[in-house]
């Protein structure tokens, strides 16, 4: 599932590049696509019996090194934190997914120091935690709810002024552009929804 989803991210390369170019340095498309490719390669090196924690650590390490940048280091820090918080389990259930999401979001927020509304990936991550918590028993519905909340958050970032990262340097001129990091997270969720396990 994850492998398919990551492969789908290829198609967001240009969108993410352009979003980052508008208010940053334009490397986000590469960061995400190359990062995803590196993760896929990393996953293939793992033994079939690998637990979730190891999988997360591998994702972190691979994503961080593919195209070093703010986003890649933050995502890696988030995944490492999730791997620690989760401990050794073999499968992810709904509770496990929530642990991962919360741990990662907390870690990214601690590390990056971004508050909600600072126009970063945090703006999309936080609402999906609530969506996941409040969702019904069907995983598919839960994912849909997360996507819905992330999509709304991304749209809202367009009216915010960047307070963190490279984009913060140009302050007001970031207004009108949605945040690239938040968009990348949305595209990941959408890609997961498009995999055979979810697509209806």
């Amino acid at each position: 599932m994850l492998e398919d989803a990551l492969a789908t991210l290829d198609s967001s390369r240009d969108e993410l590049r352009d979003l980052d170019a508008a208010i940053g340095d334009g490397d986000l498309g590469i960061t995400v696509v190359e990062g995803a490719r590196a993760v896929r390669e990393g996953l293939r090196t793992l033994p079939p019996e690998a637990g979730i924690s190891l999988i997360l650590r591998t994702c972190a390490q691979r994503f961080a090194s593919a195209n070093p940048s703010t986003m890649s280091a933050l995502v890696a820090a988030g995944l490492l934190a999730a791997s620690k918080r989760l401990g050794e389990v073999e499968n992810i259930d709904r509770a496990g997914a929530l642990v991962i999401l919360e741990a990662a979001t907390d870690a990214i927020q601690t590390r990056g120091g971004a508050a909600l509304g600072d126009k970063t990936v945090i703006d999309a991550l936080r609402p999906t935690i609530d969506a996941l918590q409040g969702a019904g028993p069907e995983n598919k519905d839960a994912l849909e709810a997360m996507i819905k909340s992330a999509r709304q958050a991304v749209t809202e970032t367009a009216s915010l002024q960047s307070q963190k990262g490279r984009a913060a340097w140009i302050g007001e001129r970031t207004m009108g552009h949605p945040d690239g990091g938040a968009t990348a997270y949305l595209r990941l969720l959408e890609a997961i929804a498009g995999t055979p396990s979810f697509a209806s």
Partner: protein
Amino acid sequence: MRKLINDPGNFVDEVLEGILLAHPEKLIALPHEPRAIVRADAPGGRVGIVTGGGSGHLPVFLGYVGVGLCSAAAVGNVFSSPSAEQVLAATKASDCGKGVLYLFGNYGGDVMNFALAGDLAEMDGILTETVLVHDDVLSAPREREESRRGVAGMVFAFKCAGAAAERGDSLSEVTRVARKAVKSMRTAGVGLSPTILPAAGKPTFELPEGYMEIGIGIHGEPGSHRGPLESADQVTERIVSAILDDLAPSSGSEVALLVNGLGATPLEELYLLYRHAHRMLVERGITITRRYIGEYATSLEMAGASITIMTLDEELTQLMDAPANSPFFRQ
């Protein structure tokens, strides 16, 4: 493009290759991580200092790897962060058991990657401390001092912390010295032209001919004032005033002063800036006791310059005067 380069995709690695061919007795690349450039005699018996960041700023960063300076640098692509893995490799090669100081400029990507490296180093039982250089006084107001960018003042931080490490100070002492240096310094700059990234082939920002941007960052980040180009004296007036307003050195202080060229500005012009800065400080009863004029932290071929002022006490003076030796910096 007016660049003497080969395939832009190989730019950084080829530059490194050239540097290592030229200075094999002083610098080495780690065999398993060629983007980690390390003092040939690392780790030695001293506290390590690892720096790093994007390429395109020579002599920053790896030019300050040497005796009395840093122990290693992690080398990112042009204007982008090195990876945590590269920083980690540099960290391991720099640690003799006494720990490692991360000393680099305040940029999001670098901060995140060094932090991640610190986490990984901790898992390996290596103690790390971090001091961010945030000397660019015009990049944020004093209330958000900690969010200022790190620019040419880095060189003074490397010099002081490096001297402390070299004389055998502990990690906490080296960290204290680095913090003190950062606290004692301010930088402000002016840009007269953008720079062109080898890979992108386009200017990093637009600045019409005959205009200047005061407070520009070394990647072309926007500054605090854009307007028609003024005279060298007027520009110096703006820059030095911005520094002095914030640093507020008392009359009678001694300072170290760095006039730094960003790449395309001739040394002649840097001395024009020095001339007026000197007169301004004399007028305020401040004595320049240590001076550096040249290209110390660049932005490829950007035209422009920056001035850094660091107030000196006896300790910092001594550290500034200690010997230092790298292929790019010697005293």
